[in-house]
Protein backbone atom coordinates (compact mmCIF):
# COMPACT_ATOMS: atom_id res chain seq x y z
CA UNK A 1 0.00 0.00 0.00
CA UNK A 2 2.58 2.61 1.11
CA UNK A 3 4.32 4.88 0.39
CA UNK A 4 1.57 7.36 -0.37
CA UNK A 5 2.53 10.11 -2.75
CA UNK A 6 0.63 13.36 -3.13
CA UNK A 7 1.45 15.25 -6.27
CA UNK A 8 0.42 18.93 -6.57
CA UNK A 9 -2.85 18.07 -4.85
CA UNK A 10 -5.54 20.77 -4.88
CA UNK A 11 -9.14 20.92 -3.85
CA UNK A 12 -11.59 23.73 -4.35
CA UNK A 13 -15.27 24.27 -3.74
CA UNK A 14 -16.46 26.88 -6.20
CA UNK A 15 -13.96 29.72 -5.96
CA UNK A 16 -12.71 28.76 -2.52
CA UNK A 17 -9.36 26.98 -2.56
CA UNK A 18 -9.19 24.63 0.40
CA UNK A 19 -6.08 22.62 -0.48
CA UNK A 20 -3.41 24.42 -2.52
CA UNK A 21 -0.90 22.32 -4.41
CA UNK A 22 0.27 19.92 -1.73
CA UNK A 23 3.06 17.50 -2.62
CA UNK A 24 4.35 15.01 -0.09
CA UNK A 25 5.51 11.45 0.29
CA UNK A 26 4.24 9.53 3.30
CA UNK A 27 6.23 6.40 4.11
CA UNK A 28 5.22 3.26 5.94
CA UNK A 29 6.12 3.14 9.61
CA UNK A 30 6.14 6.42 11.51
CA UNK A 31 2.91 7.80 12.95
CA UNK A 32 2.06 10.80 10.79
CA UNK A 33 0.29 13.73 12.39
CA UNK A 34 -1.32 16.39 10.23
CA UNK A 35 -1.18 19.50 12.39
CA UNK A 36 -2.59 22.95 11.90
CA UNK A 37 -5.16 25.47 13.05
CA UNK A 38 -8.87 25.08 12.41
CA UNK A 39 -9.70 25.69 8.78
CA UNK A 40 -6.20 24.83 7.56
CA UNK A 41 -7.57 21.98 5.44
CA UNK A 42 -6.48 19.02 7.59
CA UNK A 43 -9.74 17.11 7.41
CA UNK A 44 -10.17 17.79 3.71
CA UNK A 45 -6.64 16.56 3.00
CA UNK A 46 -7.38 13.36 4.89
CA UNK A 47 -10.69 12.84 3.03
CA UNK A 48 -8.86 13.31 -0.26
CA UNK A 49 -6.28 10.69 0.72
CA UNK A 50 -9.02 8.28 1.83
CA UNK A 51 -10.93 8.82 -1.40
CA UNK A 52 -14.06 10.38 0.10
CA UNK A 53 -13.40 13.55 -1.92
CA UNK A 54 -12.07 13.84 -5.45
CA UNK A 55 -9.19 16.30 -5.93
CA UNK A 56 -9.85 19.16 -8.34
CA UNK A 57 -6.21 18.97 -9.42
CA UNK A 58 -3.17 16.81 -8.79
CA UNK A 59 -2.80 13.14 -8.05
CA UNK A 60 -2.80 10.66 -5.19
CA UNK A 61 -0.62 7.62 -5.77
CA UNK A 62 -0.48 4.57 -3.54
CA UNK A 63 2.85 3.12 -4.62
CA UNK A 64 2.59 -0.22 -2.92
CA UNK A 65 -1.04 -0.76 -3.99
CA UNK A 66 -1.94 -4.36 -4.60
CA UNK A 67 -4.40 -5.06 -7.40
CA UNK A 68 -7.00 -2.33 -7.71
CA UNK A 69 -9.16 -1.75 -4.68
CA UNK A 70 -7.12 0.58 -2.47
CA UNK A 71 -10.14 1.40 -0.27
CA UNK A 72 -10.14 -2.16 1.07
CA UNK A 73 -6.80 -1.58 2.76
CA UNK A 74 -7.69 1.67 4.47
CA UNK A 75 -10.06 2.63 7.24
CA UNK A 76 -11.07 5.92 8.77
CA UNK A 77 -12.32 7.11 12.14
CA UNK A 78 -14.21 10.38 12.15
CA UNK A 79 -14.32 13.18 14.68
CA UNK A 80 -17.93 12.37 15.49
CA UNK A 81 -18.43 8.61 15.34
CA UNK A 82 -21.42 7.54 13.24
CA UNK A 83 -23.04 4.61 15.01
CA UNK A 84 -25.58 2.42 13.29
CA UNK A 85 -28.80 1.63 15.17
CA UNK A 86 -27.71 -1.83 16.19
CA UNK A 87 -25.58 -3.38 18.92
CA UNK A 88 -21.93 -2.54 19.48
CA UNK A 89 -21.05 -5.98 18.16
CA UNK A 90 -23.38 -5.43 15.18
CA UNK A 91 -21.55 -2.20 14.32
CA UNK A 92 -18.17 -3.94 14.17
CA UNK A 93 -19.62 -6.87 12.25
CA UNK A 94 -21.23 -4.54 9.72
CA UNK A 95 -17.85 -3.36 8.42
CA UNK A 96 -16.48 -6.91 8.36
CA UNK A 97 -19.49 -8.18 6.43
CA UNK A 98 -19.01 -5.43 3.84
CA UNK A 99 -15.41 -6.60 3.54
CA UNK A 100 -16.77 -9.99 2.54
CA UNK A 101 -16.02 -12.01 5.66
CA UNK A 102 -18.19 -14.96 6.61
CA UNK A 103 -20.62 -14.58 9.50
CA UNK A 104 -18.74 -16.76 11.97
CA UNK A 105 -15.45 -15.13 11.03
CA UNK A 106 -17.03 -11.70 11.55
CA UNK A 107 -18.28 -12.56 14.99
CA UNK A 108 -14.97 -13.98 16.20
CA UNK A 109 -12.96 -11.05 14.89
CA UNK A 110 -15.49 -8.50 16.18
CA UNK A 111 -15.47 -9.96 19.70
CA UNK A 112 -11.66 -9.95 19.63
CA UNK A 113 -11.37 -6.25 18.88
CA UNK A 114 -14.16 -5.33 21.31
CA UNK A 115 -12.14 -7.15 23.95
CA UNK A 116 -9.00 -5.18 23.06
CA UNK A 117 -10.73 -1.79 23.24
CA UNK A 118 -12.42 -2.75 26.50
CA UNK A 119 -16.00 -2.94 25.23
CA UNK A 120 -16.56 -6.71 25.38
CA UNK A 121 -19.04 -6.36 28.24
CA UNK A 122 -21.06 -3.87 26.14
CA UNK A 123 -21.10 -6.04 22.99
CA UNK A 124 -24.86 -6.54 22.99
CA UNK A 125 -25.79 -3.00 24.01
CA UNK A 126 -27.15 -0.62 21.35
CA UNK A 127 -24.22 1.45 20.08
CA UNK A 128 -26.05 4.75 20.26
CA UNK A 129 -26.67 4.58 23.99
CA UNK A 130 -22.94 4.23 24.76
CA UNK A 131 -21.07 7.28 26.07
CA UNK A 132 -19.11 9.52 23.70
CA UNK A 133 -15.80 7.94 24.70
CA UNK A 134 -17.19 4.43 24.35
CA UNK A 135 -18.62 5.27 20.93
CA UNK A 136 -15.24 6.54 19.76
CA UNK A 137 -13.55 3.37 21.07
CA UNK A 138 -16.18 1.39 19.20
CA UNK A 139 -15.44 3.37 16.04
CA UNK A 140 -11.75 2.50 16.47
CA UNK A 141 -12.66 -1.16 16.98
CA UNK A 142 -14.82 -1.12 13.85
CA UNK A 143 -11.95 0.33 11.80
CA UNK A 144 -9.27 -1.86 13.37
CA UNK A 145 -11.27 -5.05 12.86
CA UNK A 146 -10.86 -4.58 9.11
CA UNK A 147 -7.09 -5.03 9.52
CA UNK A 148 -6.26 -1.97 7.41
CA UNK A 149 -2.76 -1.17 6.17
CA UNK A 150 -3.51 2.50 6.80
CA UNK A 151 -5.82 4.01 9.42
CA UNK A 152 -6.91 7.64 9.04
CA UNK A 153 -8.08 9.41 12.18
CA UNK A 154 -9.74 12.82 11.97
CA UNK A 155 -9.43 14.65 15.31
CA UNK A 156 -10.38 11.44 17.10
CA UNK A 157 -10.39 12.96 20.60
CA UNK A 158 -11.70 16.46 19.86
CA UNK A 159 -15.05 15.88 21.56
CA UNK A 160 -13.81 13.86 24.51
CA UNK A 161 -12.77 14.54 28.09
CA UNK A 162 -9.10 13.96 29.03
CA UNK A 163 -9.55 10.48 30.44
CA UNK A 164 -11.56 9.25 27.45
CA UNK A 165 -8.99 10.90 25.19
CA UNK A 166 -6.23 8.99 26.97
CA UNK A 167 -8.02 5.69 26.32
CA UNK A 168 -8.27 6.57 22.65
CA UNK A 169 -4.58 7.49 22.45
CA UNK A 170 -3.48 4.20 23.95
CA UNK A 171 -5.69 2.29 21.52
CA UNK A 172 -4.16 4.26 18.64
CA UNK A 173 -0.73 3.24 19.88
CA UNK A 174 -1.81 -0.40 20.07
CA UNK A 175 -3.05 -0.21 16.48
CA UNK A 176 0.28 1.33 15.47
CA UNK A 177 2.13 -1.45 17.29
CA UNK A 178 0.10 -4.04 15.39
CA UNK A 179 1.67 -2.74 12.16
CA UNK A 180 -1.02 -0.40 10.84
CA UNK A 181 0.17 2.93 9.51
CA UNK A 182 -1.41 5.79 11.50
CA UNK A 183 -2.25 9.06 9.78
CA UNK A 184 -4.17 11.46 12.00
CA UNK A 185 -5.16 15.11 12.22
CA UNK A 186 -5.13 17.19 15.35
CA UNK A 187 -4.97 20.82 16.36
CA UNK A 188 -3.76 19.80 19.81
CA UNK A 189 -0.01 20.30 20.29
CA UNK A 190 0.20 17.97 23.28
CA UNK A 191 -1.46 15.18 21.36
CA UNK A 192 0.83 15.78 18.38
CA UNK A 193 3.86 15.43 20.69
CA UNK A 194 2.50 12.29 22.35
CA UNK A 195 1.33 10.48 19.23
CA UNK A 196 3.38 11.85 16.36
CA UNK A 197 6.61 10.58 14.84
CA UNK A 198 6.46 13.07 12.00
CA UNK A 199 4.45 16.20 11.40
CA UNK A 200 2.79 17.60 8.31
CA UNK A 201 2.00 21.19 9.21
CA UNK A 202 -0.79 22.82 7.21
CA UNK A 203 -1.71 26.44 7.14
CA UNK A 204 -4.33 27.98 4.89
CA UNK A 205 -4.44 24.97 2.59
CA UNK A 206 -0.68 24.80 2.06
CA UNK A 207 1.82 22.28 3.37
CA UNK A 208 4.25 24.44 5.33
CA UNK A 209 6.40 21.74 6.86
CA UNK A 210 7.00 18.04 6.73
CA UNK A 211 9.46 17.14 9.47
CA UNK A 212 10.26 14.60 12.18
CA UNK A 213 8.59 15.50 15.46
CA UNK A 214 11.74 16.60 17.33
CA UNK A 215 12.93 18.91 14.64
CA UNK A 216 9.47 20.36 14.08
CA UNK A 217 9.12 21.41 17.69
CA UNK A 218 12.80 22.36 18.19
CA UNK A 219 13.32 24.43 15.09
CA UNK A 220 10.21 24.99 13.00
CA UNK A 221 11.20 26.21 9.54
CA UNK A 222 8.16 28.34 8.78
CA UNK A 223 6.94 31.40 10.63
CA UNK A 224 3.38 29.98 10.69
CA UNK A 225 4.54 26.80 12.42
CA UNK A 226 6.69 28.74 14.88
CA UNK A 227 3.73 30.96 15.72
CA UNK A 228 1.39 27.98 16.06
CA UNK A 229 3.77 26.26 18.45
CA UNK A 230 4.08 29.42 20.52
CA UNK A 231 0.30 29.66 20.60
CA UNK A 232 0.05 32.93 18.79
CA UNK A 233 -2.81 33.58 16.41
CA UNK A 234 -1.26 35.24 13.36
CA UNK A 235 -4.10 34.19 11.09
CA UNK A 236 -6.53 36.48 12.83
Amino acid at each position, binding site marked *: MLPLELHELSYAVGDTQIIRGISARIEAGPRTVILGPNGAGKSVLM*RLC*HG*LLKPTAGRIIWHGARNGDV*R*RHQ*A*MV*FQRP*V*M*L*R*RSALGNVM*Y*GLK*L*AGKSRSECELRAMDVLEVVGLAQHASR*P*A*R*VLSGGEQQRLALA*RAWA*LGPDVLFLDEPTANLDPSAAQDIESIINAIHASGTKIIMTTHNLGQARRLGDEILFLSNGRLKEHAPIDRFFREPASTEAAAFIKGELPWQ
Partner: protein
Amino acid sequence: MNSMGEAFSAAWQMLAGFDAELAQIVGLSLQVSITAVVIATLLGLPLGAAIAVGRFPGRQSLIVLLNALMGLPPVVVGLVVYLLLSRAGPLGSLGILFTPQAMVIAQTILIAPIIAALSRQTIEDAWREYDEQLRSLGAHRLTAAMTLIWDTRFSLLTIVLAGFGRAAAEVGAVMIVGGNIDGVTRVMTTAIALETSKGDLPLALGLGIVLIGLVLLLNALAAIIRELALRRYG
Protein backbone atom coordinates in the same frame (compact mmCIF):
# COMPACT_ATOMS: atom_id res chain seq x y z
CA MET B 1 -79.97 17.99 20.60
CA ASN B 2 -82.27 15.20 21.70
CA SER B 3 -81.91 13.32 18.41
CA MET B 4 -78.15 13.58 18.67
CA GLY B 5 -78.25 12.05 22.13
CA GLU B 6 -80.46 9.24 20.88
CA ALA B 7 -78.17 8.66 17.92
CA PHE B 8 -75.19 8.40 20.26
CA SER B 9 -76.81 5.87 22.55
CA ALA B 10 -77.98 3.82 19.56
CA ALA B 11 -74.46 3.95 18.14
CA TRP B 12 -72.98 2.72 21.42
CA GLN B 13 -75.45 -0.15 21.47
CA MET B 14 -74.41 -1.18 17.97
CA LEU B 15 -70.74 -1.04 18.93
CA ALA B 16 -71.23 -2.90 22.19
CA GLY B 17 -73.39 -5.55 20.50
CA PHE B 18 -70.93 -6.09 17.63
CA ASP B 19 -73.65 -5.27 15.12
CA ALA B 20 -73.17 -7.56 12.10
CA GLU B 21 -73.63 -4.88 9.46
CA LEU B 22 -71.23 -2.53 11.24
CA ALA B 23 -68.64 -5.28 11.70
CA GLN B 24 -68.83 -6.21 8.04
CA ILE B 25 -68.26 -2.61 6.93
CA VAL B 26 -65.35 -2.12 9.34
CA GLY B 27 -63.85 -5.41 8.18
CA LEU B 28 -63.97 -4.45 4.51
CA SER B 29 -62.51 -1.02 5.29
CA LEU B 30 -59.55 -2.58 7.06
CA GLN B 31 -59.07 -5.18 4.35
CA VAL B 32 -59.03 -2.61 1.53
CA SER B 33 -56.86 -0.04 3.30
CA ILE B 34 -54.36 -2.54 4.71
CA THR B 35 -53.92 -4.15 1.29
CA ALA B 36 -53.44 -0.72 -0.28
CA VAL B 37 -50.87 0.25 2.38
CA VAL B 38 -48.89 -2.95 1.89
CA ILE B 39 -48.73 -2.47 -1.88
CA ALA B 40 -48.02 1.26 -1.58
CA THR B 41 -45.18 0.52 0.87
CA LEU B 42 -43.67 -2.12 -1.42
CA LEU B 43 -43.71 0.45 -4.23
CA GLY B 44 -43.09 3.69 -2.36
CA LEU B 45 -40.35 2.70 0.07
CA PRO B 46 -37.81 1.42 -2.49
CA LEU B 47 -38.63 4.38 -4.72
CA GLY B 48 -38.09 6.82 -1.85
CA ALA B 49 -34.83 5.12 -0.88
CA ALA B 50 -33.58 5.12 -4.48
CA ILE B 51 -34.26 8.83 -4.88
CA ALA B 52 -32.69 9.54 -1.47
CA VAL B 53 -29.30 7.97 -2.26
CA GLY B 54 -29.36 8.29 -6.06
CA ARG B 55 -27.81 11.06 -8.13
CA PHE B 56 -29.37 11.40 -11.56
CA PRO B 57 -30.58 14.16 -13.88
CA GLY B 58 -34.09 15.38 -13.08
CA ARG B 59 -33.83 14.24 -9.46
CA GLN B 60 -34.90 17.59 -8.04
CA SER B 61 -37.93 17.77 -10.35
CA LEU B 62 -38.90 14.26 -9.37
CA ILE B 63 -38.79 15.23 -5.69
CA VAL B 64 -40.98 18.26 -6.35
CA LEU B 65 -43.43 16.11 -8.31
CA LEU B 66 -43.51 13.46 -5.59
CA ASN B 67 -44.12 16.05 -2.89
CA ALA B 68 -46.91 17.57 -4.98
CA LEU B 69 -48.50 14.13 -5.46
CA MET B 70 -48.87 13.87 -1.68
CA GLY B 71 -51.70 16.35 -2.01
CA LEU B 72 -53.59 14.42 -4.70
CA PRO B 73 -57.33 15.01 -4.23
CA PRO B 74 -58.97 11.61 -3.63
CA VAL B 75 -61.93 12.39 -5.91
CA VAL B 76 -59.57 13.09 -8.81
CA VAL B 77 -57.75 9.81 -8.20
CA GLY B 78 -61.15 8.13 -8.07
CA LEU B 79 -62.17 9.74 -11.33
CA VAL B 80 -58.98 8.71 -13.14
CA VAL B 81 -59.14 5.12 -11.87
CA TYR B 82 -62.84 5.07 -12.79
CA LEU B 83 -62.03 6.13 -16.36
CA LEU B 84 -59.26 3.53 -16.60
CA LEU B 85 -61.42 0.70 -15.28
CA SER B 86 -64.76 1.58 -16.84
CA ARG B 87 -66.00 -0.71 -19.59
CA ALA B 88 -64.80 1.65 -22.35
CA GLY B 89 -61.49 2.41 -20.60
CA PRO B 90 -58.09 0.87 -21.35
CA LEU B 91 -58.36 -1.56 -18.42
CA GLY B 92 -62.10 -2.13 -18.81
CA SER B 93 -61.59 -5.76 -19.82
CA LEU B 94 -60.45 -6.57 -16.28
CA GLY B 95 -64.02 -6.01 -15.14
CA ILE B 96 -63.05 -4.89 -11.66
CA LEU B 97 -64.85 -1.55 -11.46
CA PHE B 98 -67.12 -1.47 -8.38
CA THR B 99 -65.12 -4.19 -6.64
CA PRO B 100 -62.78 -4.02 -3.63
CA GLN B 101 -59.83 -4.51 -6.03
CA ALA B 102 -60.67 -1.20 -7.73
CA MET B 103 -60.76 0.46 -4.30
CA VAL B 104 -57.36 -0.99 -3.43
CA ILE B 105 -55.94 0.36 -6.69
CA ALA B 106 -57.31 3.84 -6.06
CA GLN B 107 -56.04 3.98 -2.48
CA THR B 108 -52.64 2.63 -3.52
CA ILE B 109 -52.29 5.44 -6.06
CA LEU B 110 -53.32 7.88 -3.35
CA ILE B 111 -50.85 6.83 -0.66
CA ALA B 112 -47.83 5.45 -2.57
CA PRO B 113 -46.60 9.02 -3.26
CA ILE B 114 -47.02 9.89 0.42
CA ILE B 115 -44.93 6.93 1.52
CA ALA B 116 -42.35 7.54 -1.22
CA ALA B 117 -42.00 11.26 -0.52
CA LEU B 118 -41.81 11.01 3.27
CA SER B 119 -39.44 8.04 3.27
CA ARG B 120 -37.25 9.85 0.72
CA GLN B 121 -36.94 12.74 3.19
CA THR B 122 -36.25 10.49 6.18
CA ILE B 123 -33.68 8.35 4.38
CA GLU B 124 -31.95 11.35 2.82
CA ASP B 125 -31.55 13.01 6.22
CA ALA B 126 -29.98 9.82 7.57
CA TRP B 127 -27.82 9.52 4.45
CA ARG B 128 -26.36 12.96 5.15
CA GLU B 129 -25.23 11.71 8.55
CA TYR B 130 -24.02 8.25 7.40
CA ASP B 131 -22.69 9.03 3.94
CA GLU B 132 -18.95 9.30 4.66
CA GLN B 133 -18.91 6.50 7.22
CA LEU B 134 -20.69 4.07 4.91
CA ARG B 135 -18.53 4.95 1.94
CA SER B 136 -15.43 4.61 4.12
CA LEU B 137 -16.54 1.10 5.06
CA GLY B 138 -16.93 0.32 1.38
CA ALA B 139 -20.73 0.26 1.11
CA HIS B 140 -22.10 0.69 -2.41
CA ARG B 141 -25.30 2.61 -3.01
CA LEU B 142 -27.63 -0.39 -2.83
CA THR B 143 -26.04 -1.63 0.41
CA ALA B 144 -26.16 1.92 1.78
CA ALA B 145 -29.86 2.20 0.90
CA MET B 146 -30.66 -1.08 2.66
CA THR B 147 -28.66 -0.01 5.72
CA LEU B 148 -30.45 3.33 5.86
CA ILE B 149 -33.89 1.70 5.55
CA TRP B 150 -33.02 -0.61 8.43
CA ASP B 151 -31.60 2.20 10.56
CA THR B 152 -34.61 4.47 10.05
CA ARG B 153 -37.12 1.63 10.38
CA PHE B 154 -39.05 3.21 13.24
CA SER B 155 -39.51 6.53 11.47
CA LEU B 156 -40.51 4.64 8.35
CA LEU B 157 -43.10 2.69 10.32
CA THR B 158 -44.66 5.99 11.42
CA ILE B 159 -44.84 7.00 7.76
CA VAL B 160 -46.57 3.75 6.83
CA LEU B 161 -49.08 4.29 9.64
CA ALA B 162 -49.72 7.82 8.37
CA GLY B 163 -50.39 6.33 4.94
CA PHE B 164 -52.84 3.89 6.46
CA GLY B 165 -54.63 6.70 8.30
CA ARG B 166 -55.01 8.62 5.05
CA ALA B 167 -56.34 5.54 3.22
CA ALA B 168 -58.83 4.56 5.91
CA ALA B 169 -60.18 8.10 6.24
CA GLU B 170 -60.57 9.04 2.58
CA VAL B 171 -63.99 8.88 0.97
CA GLY B 172 -63.83 10.38 -2.53
CA ALA B 173 -61.80 7.73 -4.33
CA VAL B 174 -63.48 4.63 -2.89
CA MET B 175 -66.93 6.16 -3.40
CA ILE B 176 -66.33 6.65 -7.13
CA VAL B 177 -64.57 3.38 -7.97
CA GLY B 178 -66.32 1.21 -5.38
CA GLY B 179 -69.81 2.56 -5.80
CA ASN B 180 -70.75 2.03 -2.13
CA ILE B 181 -72.59 -1.22 -2.88
CA ASP B 182 -74.14 -2.68 0.25
CA GLY B 183 -72.24 -5.76 1.40
CA VAL B 184 -69.71 -5.58 -1.45
CA THR B 185 -67.89 -2.26 -1.57
CA ARG B 186 -69.37 -0.33 1.33
CA VAL B 187 -66.64 0.89 3.68
CA MET B 188 -66.73 3.11 6.77
CA THR B 189 -66.37 6.47 5.04
CA THR B 190 -68.81 5.79 2.20
CA ALA B 191 -71.32 4.30 4.64
CA ILE B 192 -71.10 7.40 6.84
CA ALA B 193 -71.73 9.62 3.83
CA LEU B 194 -74.71 7.55 2.72
CA GLU B 195 -76.33 6.92 6.11
CA THR B 196 -76.02 10.57 7.04
CA SER B 197 -77.85 11.63 3.90
CA LYS B 198 -80.45 8.92 4.51
CA GLY B 199 -80.90 10.09 8.08
CA ASP B 200 -79.73 6.83 9.72
CA LEU B 201 -77.57 8.61 12.22
CA PRO B 202 -76.82 5.74 14.67
CA LEU B 203 -74.95 3.66 12.07
CA ALA B 204 -73.14 6.75 10.72
CA LEU B 205 -72.13 7.82 14.21
CA GLY B 206 -71.10 4.30 15.20
CA LEU B 207 -68.84 4.09 12.17
CA GLY B 208 -67.53 7.58 12.88
CA ILE B 209 -66.58 6.55 16.39
CA VAL B 210 -64.78 3.45 15.10
CA LEU B 211 -62.96 5.54 12.50
CA ILE B 212 -61.81 8.16 14.97
CA GLY B 213 -60.86 5.43 17.43
CA LEU B 214 -58.80 3.75 14.74
CA VAL B 215 -56.97 6.95 13.85
CA LEU B 216 -56.29 7.63 17.54
CA LEU B 217 -55.07 4.09 18.06
CA LEU B 218 -52.70 4.36 15.09
CA ASN B 219 -51.23 7.62 16.31
CA ALA B 220 -50.81 6.27 19.82
CA LEU B 221 -49.12 3.20 18.37
CA ALA B 222 -46.77 5.34 16.29
CA ALA B 223 -45.86 7.46 19.33
CA ILE B 224 -45.23 4.39 21.49
CA ILE B 225 -43.06 2.74 18.85
CA ARG B 226 -40.95 5.87 18.42
CA GLU B 227 -40.58 6.31 22.17
CA LEU B 228 -39.55 2.69 22.72
CA ALA B 229 -37.15 2.80 19.80
CA LEU B 230 -35.52 5.99 21.06
CA ARG B 231 -35.07 4.52 24.50
CA ARG B 232 -33.81 1.21 23.17
CA TYR B 233 -31.61 2.32 20.26
CA GLY B 234 -30.93 6.03 20.78
